[in-house]
């Protein structure tokens, strides 16, 4: 298993952003669904080793991220796209991707080819030498994806990767996800259920810091047959599970 999480909690003061999550994931595309404020981004930040857990057990790529050496090894094999990608406006696309390839400790000799391949994979070849300040929001998102995949990560964490992409780009991106998921564990946090239906082999649904559903997109769809609202079957499953979880929460 590339991700092993047991009873993981992350607090911010009195607020429990992640409240006792258990999760396991191997190679494949794993969708993390949930409404705003469900704890998806915090969980992703913990998995990206940006935030330490308050309590619980976390193992990534069969290593303990709490210790310096293993954490560095994890980070070499990690790709992360934060929800809000900060960028250096004066950098070109290639310079930005190259900078993070170097910070990922890639051998310098391998970096130019890896940068070219990553930029090509997100279809930004024609903008390779363009300054980031000249790019649109969708292009910047693709630059973020390029830096995340430049080291061919074994664990790829993407927070709202399709935000700002047009429909054609989203379709292409899902194909890229499926390809990446053949070798790596790809975790995609999103609130767009159609992305999950099209690209994910497994899905977890979070609400109020907890995982309230874990299964396949088909199983989530099946939960919506006797309830739930929405235009698509997966949306009905999503809303039905959320409604059941909130009812159970209210009753307890």
């Amino acid at each position, binding site marked *: 298993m590339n991700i092993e999480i047991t009873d993981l909690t992350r607090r911010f003061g009195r607020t429990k952003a992640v409240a006792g999550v258990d999760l396991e994931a191997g190679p494949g595309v794993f969708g993390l669904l949930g409404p705003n404020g469900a704890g998806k981004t915090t969980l992703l*930040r913990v998995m990206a*080793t*940006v935030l*330490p*857990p308050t*309590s*619980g*057990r*976390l*193992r990534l790529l069969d290593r*303990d*991220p*709490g*210790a310096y050496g293993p*954490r*560095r090894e994890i*980070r*070499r094999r*990690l790709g*992360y796209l*934060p929800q*809000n*990608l*900060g*960028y*250096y406006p004066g950098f070109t696309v*290639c*310079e930005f991707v*190259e*900078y*993070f390839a*170097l*910070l*990922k*400790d890639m051998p*310098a000799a391998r970096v*130019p*080819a890896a*940068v*070219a*391949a990553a*930029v*090509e*994979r*997100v*279809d930004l*070849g*024609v903008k*390779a*030498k363009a300054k980031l300040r000249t790019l649109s929001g969708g292009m910047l998102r*693709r630059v973020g*994806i390029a*830096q995340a995949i430049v080291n061919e990560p074994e664990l790829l964490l993407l927070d709202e990767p399709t935000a700002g*992409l047009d429909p054609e*780009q989203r379709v*292409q*991106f899902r*194909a*890229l996800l499926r*390809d990446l998921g053949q070798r790596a564990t790809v975790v995609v946090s999103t609130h767009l259920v159609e992305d999950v239906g099209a690209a994910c082999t497994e899905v977890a649904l979070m609400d109020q810091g907890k995982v309230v559903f874990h299964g396949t997109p088909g199983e989530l769809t099946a939960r919506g047959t006797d309830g739930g609202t929405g235009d698509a079957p997966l949306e009905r499953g999503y809303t039905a599970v959320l409604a059941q979880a909130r009812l159970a929460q209210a009753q307890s």
Partner: protein
Amino acid sequence: MTDPSLTGRSDAGRSDAGRSDAGRADTGLDGVDLDRVWIGVAAQVWRREPGWLERLAGRLLRSPALARALLTTPSLLLPWLIASIAVLAAGAAATLGTGQPVAPLLAPAVAAAGIAYAYGPGIDPAWELARSMAVSDRMVLLVRALAVFAVDAALGIVACAASGAALGITFGWLIPMTAVSALALAAATVARSANVGVAAGLGGWAITILGGQAATGKFTVAVQGSVLVLPYLVFAAACLAAVLYASRVSKGTS
């Protein structure tokens, strides 16, 4: 978003390369992986050649990543350096005109501001991303802070020498500069804001100068009083300990 392994080509540069198999056969390209060839070409065309300074820093630091991070330090970029030189030049001119050691009094403030703006969530837009990298953000912070300190110290020495300040005074301010820079760094790191770091550094230094003036009647006691050397050093060490504590990644439980 195009995966070369899944599709043909995406941009003009590769459109020729992606032509039909018949075309490949005509030109004897059977068995050639044109996607791979294109990536090789693009890698050469798009490659950025590091300058001599970056190559030198890479050798000294044994890390091309740290060298690149060093050269992207916001407070080592040309506009900031020009501003620092202008402030210290004005201080040197004031020292020459008034006979007061204005340049040594200004140098710690300039360094404090520069160090607060060396790194961190308040100034580095990709800070969250950088926190997930194998080359630790603490190393980047350390390398940048040392570099800014060294550059500002060198500029301060030049300004003091140019204004004819005595060597004793010239080197007397290096220790207060260390303390003020450490304070700025600690405040910026703990508060996660470069502006808070600048405010703490400048505020702390102003209080020190005014406190010395109130006690002795002289502004210059802050850089001339040898009795302050030990408190400055202890204070700097405490601030650096705070930086190390604030920038740690706690182990949590695993």
